[in-house]
């Protein structure tokens, strides 16, 4: 399946099916720092991602200081 990562934007090919938790482990990502979106829908850690799914791993950590973020 195609996995889109951001900051910087890049795409990976990962063999499915695989659980969200496993995928994050494989990519060495902390689940506190990302959301996983499968075909446009938010999915929890135990969801199984099908091999033909299109996945976005969206980082949620913003840098910077001051108001207005």
């Amino acid at each position, binding site marked *: 399946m195609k996995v889109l990562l951001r900051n910087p934007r890049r795409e990976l090919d990962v063999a499915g099916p695989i659980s969200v938790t496993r995928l994050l482990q494989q990519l060495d990502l902390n689940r506190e720092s990302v959301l996983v979106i499968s075909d446009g*829908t938010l999915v*929890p850690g*135990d969801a199984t991602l099908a091999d033909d799914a299109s996945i976005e791993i969206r980082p949620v950590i913003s840098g*910077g200081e001051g*108001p*207005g*973020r």
Partner: protein
Amino acid sequence: MKCKVCRGPAVIDLPRHNANFCADHFLRYCRNQVERVIHDYAMLTPGERVLVAVSGGKDSLALWDLLGELGWETDGLYVGLGIGDYSDVSGGYARRFAAERGLRLNEVDLRATYDFDIPTAAAVTRRVPCSACGLSKRHLFDAAAVDGGYDAMATGHNLDDEAAVLYGNVLRWQMAYLGRQRPVLPAGNGFPRKVKPLVRLTERETAAYCVLRGIDYQVEECPMAAGNRHLGYKEVLNEMERRSPGTKSSFYFGFVDRAVDLFAQEAWSGPSGGVGFDDGAADDGGASGRPLGHCTRCGAPAESDLCAFCRLVDRAGGAQPVPVAPPRRRS
């Protein structure tokens, strides 16, 4: 995974609450957290008008949406920072959000009004971009809130932001900053009341809120943020959170509920001159606490003739513009 409330399929798991939620119950959870924090810290009282600091990112748009959902009368203010494409795209998200909901978004553009932008200000002052940026935003938001007669100015600082700032200030024992790091700061000395209604929500939760509410926001990171200390602190805290869910919340709320008063005496008598940890997110009136005087040019609170923003305008306004530095690769 099943929703803790309705047993329907969950879309998100929140280890720190040992709970999973469906979309509806997650949105309700977010509203409850905000409502509760507004009440517990006496941030707003019914009928008050709120100015929301809007950047086009997830936190400020979630905040604007949540305050509206909870019935508050709000306007937004967007500050054009002139950070290349990043600012253009961010402004687009803010404008679209406001237009779709019939909300009023005021705008100030640094380049158009003050003849500088953040990359140029950073180059001229030879400090990290977030320093000139935080200073400019604080000044413009404060001024707009006071001039517009708003009862409070709301910012989208979330639990991760506040925990990271606290962590940085504890590491350096920044006594004055520690004494001022509260979810609400009262109005006074020319400052508006400042409230942070998202401090009970993590960044992952505000992002999930936007996704589930169909709010499009700027997902890309500001190119000037690379190497920012806060990012490192957030990573460290999230690693602790992964091992021990609830760490960020107990760190921050333990401080706010039990420790901040111990530092209060230092709060308004702290270091002046902007040295030390420039922790914008926790501040009030920059690195020097609340000055008693007023700027002779713009009337803002100031500790010398000119406020820090007017001094920045004098240095950076009209300077040769510099291009936006390319983002550094992060994993």
